[in-house]
């Protein structure tokens, strides 16, 4: 009986992942007994997988706690909003079809009105300096939500930023207006150690 020839590399890799069904898996297993070269490939992949899995993602436990806290806050905030703001406040779909439900910023807002860009570098200095407390957390999703409240005749565009890079990103969005309201989290705001989410609200 002839030895079957070496399986293609991607097939061998699929075998390693348990993705090859019967009877081919048995044939490959038999082949492996006699082929040091294929065994070598598999052990190299085992080493790669092992290395990937051995190293835990950094800050896993802390992240689990932090995210859980944020979830609770978001849920609370949203539920309060739904209560206080339902019926009278029409919740519209944004341009991107995303429904805007989080309206908490209407109740606790305006902490730091700063004329951005218009005031030039001086204003920027204040801005950047104040934001420096929040640098440290690198990047986050910039969630742009847009709530259009007809009865208030205002359009608020809310941006969630966590550091200056994101803030700058927002300010560079085409059409961004010049008056900005920073909304700081109302739970122990300027905590240097633990950067919080800042809301930047554009008012038109």
């Amino acid at each position, binding site marked *: 009986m002839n030895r079957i020839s070496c399986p293609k590399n991607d097939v061998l890799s699929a075998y390693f992942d348990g993705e090859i069904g019967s009877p081919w898996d048995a044939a490959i297993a038999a082949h492996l007994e006699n082929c040091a070269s294929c065994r070598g490939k598999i052990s190299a992949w085992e080493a790669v997988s092992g290395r990937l899995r051995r190293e835990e993602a950094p800050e*896993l436990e802390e992240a689990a706690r932090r995210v859980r806290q944020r979830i609770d806050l978001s849920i609370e905030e949203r539920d309060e909003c739904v209560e206080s703001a339902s019926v009278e406040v029409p919740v519209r779909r944004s341009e991107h079809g995303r429904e805007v439900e989080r309206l908490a910023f209407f109740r606790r807002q305006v902490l730091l009105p700063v004329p951005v860009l218009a005031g030039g570098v001086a204003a920027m200095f204040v801005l*950047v300096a104040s934001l420096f407390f929040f640098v440290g957390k690198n*990047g986050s999703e910039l969630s742009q939500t847009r709530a259009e409240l007809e009865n208030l005749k205002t359009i608020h565009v809310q941006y969630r930023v966590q550091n200056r890079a994101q803030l700058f990103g927002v300010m560079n969005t085409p059409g961004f207006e010049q008056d900005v309201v920073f909304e700081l989290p109302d739970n122990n705001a300027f905590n240097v150690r633990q950067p919080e989410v800042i809301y930047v609200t554009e008012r038109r």
Partner: protein
Amino acid sequence: MLKKGFDEKRFNAEYSQLFPVIFRVAYRVTGDVGIAEDLCHEAFIKYYERHEPLPDSNQAKYWLIRVVKNMALNHEKRKSRERKALSKLEKITPQYAESEEKRVVEDELKSSVQEALNKLPPKLRMVLVLKEYGGLNYREIGAMLQISEGNVKVRVFRAREQLEKLFRGK
């Protein structure tokens, strides 16, 4: 206060079981703890907002990973736009520009595993992360990324091959 009919106990159990998996996927794809946390936060909120909980934790896992995957791809697109915006602003306020030195130090802090993953082409990285950290099989990965199982097989293999070279280069 919780949504009517929301089973908090169940949510807690699912959270502690699934967070590590979802976080690993989010982190390994984006290479950034802060971003990974944001993605997980949004994904779990979306899960919470679902009207019906999913029947078992494996389906919940698949659902959450899919949400994280979509957001990670969107994030990737936005990042390049933000980078441009930032460099524009750093020209106005050069005193706050991040120094090249600092960036280098930050890079060095990244583990060799993450560094190697970051070097993979995004398509290969995504498939391998879903396989190794998400624990998904080829069929699930194919369905999630809308590619064929054969394509998944090839990408997993290529990703492995490239990683092996990168690790060996150390």
